[in-house]
C-alpha cells in the first residue's frame, strides 16, 4: 500500500469516525435530552390538563358528598347517638313492639383506604383526614309478626344511611310472638351537619311478608258444630263466611274468635291467618269497642264483633 493510499485510508477512517462521533454527539446532547424533555413536558402538560378537567367536576363531587351528609343523623357523636337511639326506639314503639331496647356502641373512625396516595408532609393532613365515623346500635324488641313487619318496613323507609349488619328473628312459644334483634350501623361526617331533611324512602313491600307469620303453624281445623236451630241466616260462601264472635286481649296478646256456618270455629292470635286473611290485631272504634283488623290481598279492613268478613270496613292506607 502506497503512502498516498494509506493517507487516504486514514483520512477516510478519520472522517467516518468523526461522522460517528458527530452523530453520537447530536444524539447524546441534542436528540435524546430534547426527546426526554419533550416527554416530560408532554407528561406535565397532560397531568395539568387532567387536573383542570378533574376540577371541572369538583362542584358535582361536592353536591354528591352533600347528599350523603344530608342523609346522616348529625355532625357529632353526641348528636348522632341521640338521633339513632330516638329513631330506633320510635320505629319499634310505633310498630307496637314491646320490650323495645336500644343500645349504642363505641364509634369508629374510618380513614381513606387510599390514604397512602397522599405522600409527604404536604399530604399528611389529607392522609390523616377521617372520611367518616361509624356509629353502631342494636335494637331488641318482642312482638307479633305483623308488628315486626311494620317495624322492618318503617326502618326500610328511613332515609338515613345505614348498614343492617345483623338481623335475628326468633319465634317464641308456639310462634305467636317473635323476638327481634337488629344491629344497625350508621355513619356521619365530623363537623358536617345535614342541611336538609330528606323524605322517607318509598319501599315496595313484598307480599310474602304481609301474609301469615311463618313462625306460627295454622290452627288445626275444628269440627263444625251443629248449626243453630232454625239457621235463619243464609250461609255466605268462601272466606267471607267467617263471622267475628270475640275481639279481645288475653294475657297481653290480641285475640279474635271466628265462626263459620260450615267451616267451624277458629281462634287467631296476631299474625295467624285464615283463608288468606291475616289477623293484624285489634283496634278501638270511635265508641271504644275493639274491632278486629285483618289484611288480605294488600287490603286492610276492620270487622266488628258479630259481623262477618262480608260486612268488613276497609281501612285507608
Amino acid at each position, binding site marked *: 500500500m502506497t503512502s498516498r493510499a494509506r493517507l487516504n485510508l486514514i483520512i477516510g477512517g478519520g472522517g467516518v469516525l468523526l461522522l460517528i*462521533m*458527530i452523530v453520537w*454527539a*447530536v444524539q447524546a*446532547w*441534542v436528540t435524546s*435530552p*430534547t426527546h426526554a*424533555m*419533550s416527554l416530560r*413536558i408532554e407528561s*406535565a402538560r397532560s*397531568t*395539568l390538563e387532567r*387536573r*383542570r378537567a*378533574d*376540577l371541572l367536576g*369538583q362542584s358535582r*363531587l361536592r353536591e354528591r*358528598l352533600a347528599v*350523603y351528609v344530608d342523609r346522616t343523623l348529625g355532625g357529632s357523636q353526641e348528636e348522632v347517638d341521640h338521633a339513632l337511639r330516638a329513631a330506633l326506639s320510635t320505629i319499634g314503639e310505633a310498630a307496637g313492639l314491646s320490650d323495645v331496647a336500644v343500645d349504642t356502641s363505641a364509634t369508629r373512625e*374510618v380513614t*381513606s*383506604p*387510599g*390514604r397512602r396516595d*397522599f405522600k409527604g408532609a404536604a*399530604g399528611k393532613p*389529607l392522609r390523616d383526614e377521617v*372520611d*367518616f365515623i361509624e356509629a353502631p346500635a342494636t335494637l*331488641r324488641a318482642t312482638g307479633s309478626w305483623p308488628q315486626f313487619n311494620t317495624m*322492618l*318496613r318503617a326502618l*326500610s323507609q328511613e332515609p338515613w*344511611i*345505614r*348498614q*343492617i*349488619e*345483623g*338481623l*335475628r*328473628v*326468633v*319465634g317464641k312459644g308456639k*310462634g305467636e310472638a317473635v323476638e327481634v334483634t337488629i344491629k344497625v350501623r350508621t*355513619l356521619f361526617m365530623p363537623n358536617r351537619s345535614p342541611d336538609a331533611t330528606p323524605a322517607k324512602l318509598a*319501599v315496595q*313491600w*313484598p307480599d*310474602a*311478608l304481609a*301474609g*301469615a307469620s*311463618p*313462625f306460627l*303453624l*295454622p290452627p288445626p281445623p275444628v269440627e263444625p258444630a251443629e248449626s243453630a236451630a232454625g239457621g235463619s241466616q243464609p250461609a255466605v260462601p268462601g272466606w267471607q263466611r267467617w263471622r267475628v264472635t270475640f275481639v279481645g286481649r288475653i294475657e297481653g296478646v290480641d285475640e279474635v274468635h271466628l265462626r263459620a256456618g260450615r267451616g267451624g270455629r277458629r281462634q287467631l292470635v296476631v299474625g295467624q291467618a285464615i283463608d288468606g286473611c291475616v289477623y293484624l290485631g285489634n283496634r278501638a272504634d270511635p265508641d271504644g269497642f275493639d274491632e278486629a283488623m285483618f289484611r288480605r290481598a294488600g287490603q286492610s279492613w276492620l270487622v266488628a264483633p258479630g259481623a262477618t268478613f262480608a260486612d268488613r270496613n276497609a281501612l285507608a292506607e
Partner: protein
Amino acid sequence: MKPTIKGLGDGSPEPSTILATMSRFRIAIELGPRRLRGVAVTFVGSGLQVVAAIAKNRPELGVEAVGEWIRGVLDANDIPAGRCLLAVSRDDVVIKRLMLETPSKGELPAMVDIAMRDELHLEGGAAVIDFLTDSISPIDGSTSVHAPVETNLLAAALPASSLDRGRSRMAAAKRPVARMSLRLLGAAHLAADPHGGRVACIDVSGDGVEFTLLQGTDVRVARAAALPVQNPAEVADAATREARRTWMSWQAEAGTASIDRVVLIGDSSITDPMLEAMGEITAAPITVLREHLRIDRNGHDVSRLWALLGLLLADHAGKPLIDFIAPRKPTHRFERRRQLGLAAAGVLLVIFGVIWTWGNSSVQTMQRQLDAINAQRAKLEPKWLRYHRDRYRLANLDIWTSVQPDWVEHLAVAVDRLQPIGVLVLDEVSAALEYKGIDVPKKGGVGAWKPEVTARLVLEAEAQSRDVGEAFRQRWVEDEAWNVATTGADTDDGKRLPFGVTIRLHAPTEPEATMPEPEATP
C-alpha cells in the same frame, strides 16, 4: 562600459502571488548615524506608491531627545503614525553564510542559533539571531520526509542593545517597531535577477556603502564600508575604492569568476562618477536604479530611499525577510503534525461545542417551558389535592353504602318457600353482614377498589316430613343468590313438627371457610 539605465522589476514574485498576499507595513524607517530616512507608501495592486519621503541629516542630540526629534521630523513630513518596519544597516549586524545538516526543518533555528553563538562567541541573550534559507537539498538523495537535509542559509545577528535602542526610540516617536530587517535585503529585492543570474548590488544610498553579491534572489555575500562625509566626488572615489577591494575579496573568497550585472543604487551625484570605474573593475553591464516597475515615486526623490522601498515591496510580496523582532524559533520535529492535530482538535472542539450549545440551549428552552407548566400545576395543586381527597371520600362512602344486602327481600323469599302453609314453620332466622373494609390494589385508582364483605343467612325450621325438609333445602340449592353450606345435620328433633331443618347460606362470592359463625345470642 556604457552604463545601462533601466527600471528593474523582474526580481519580484508573480503578480498572482503578490495579489494573494496581504500588506502589513506602510512605513519604513532607517535611523543611520548621519541621516534619518523614512518613507510612507500605499499599496496599489502588486506595487506601491510613495506617499511621503524623507532623508534628513541627524543633529547631535542626547539619547533622550532622539525619539522626540524623530517624531517631530516624521510628523512634519507627513509620515503617518503607526507600526513601522525599521531597517538596519549591514554595519550593525553580523552576517554569516552557513551550511547545516539537519534531520528536520523545525530544528534549524536552534542549530543556527548554536552555530552563530559558537562562531561569534555570543552569550545567551546578547544578540538576536534570525536567518533566511536559500536552498535545501537531501544529503543522500532520499525523498523521505524525515530524511536528513543540507540547508544553505544566510544568518544574521543583531546585538540586543541595538534592538532595544531602536525599539525605544521608535516607541518614543509613536512609530512602534513591528518588524526590523536589513536594508540590504530591500536593495537586494530590487536588484535581484529572478532567472538566477549573478548580480552585484552596490548601494551608496545609505550612510555608508553596502556591497551585496546575489545569486538569483539569494544573498551570497554582503559587506559594508563607511564613507567620508565630504562632497559627492570624494564619496564616489571612496565607494569605488571599496568596490575594487570588495571585488578582489569576492574573487578570492567566493570564487566569483564573473558576474552578470552590476546594479548601483544611490544619488546620481555619487553613482554617476562611479560608472566608468566600476565598468573597468567588474567588466559587467552596470545599471543605476532610477525607476522600478512596481514603485510609483509619485514625484518624490527616492534615490536615497530605494532600500526602504525594496523592503516594503518585499514584505508586500510576501518574500521572507530577516526579522529581528520575531526571529524564527525552533519547532518540534512533528510540529506540523502537532499543529494539524491541534487544528483538528480545535475544529472538533468547535463542532462539539456548537452541538453541545445547541442541545443545551434547546434543553434550557424546554426546561423553561416545563417550569412554567409545573408552576401552573403547583398553583393548582392544593385545590386538586382537596378534590382528590374528596373523591376518595366519596368512593369510600359509595362502597360503604353499596354493600348492604336486601335482607327484606331475602326474608320474603325464605317465607315464600315455606309454602304450603302448615308443612314448614320457622324457628329462627339469622342474617349477618360483615364489612371488613376496602381492598385497594396498588394500581387502578378508586375504580379498582373492592369491598371486602361477607354475608350469611341461617334458617332454622321444622318440617312435617323429611321430604318436605329436603324439598325446602333443594330450593335454596337451586338459588343462585346463595350457596348452601354443607355443615350441620338434619335431625328429627322438631318441637312442633317432627323434623328440624337448618339451612346455612353464604354469598356465592365468598368461600365457605370464611363464613362468620352466627352469634349465639344477639
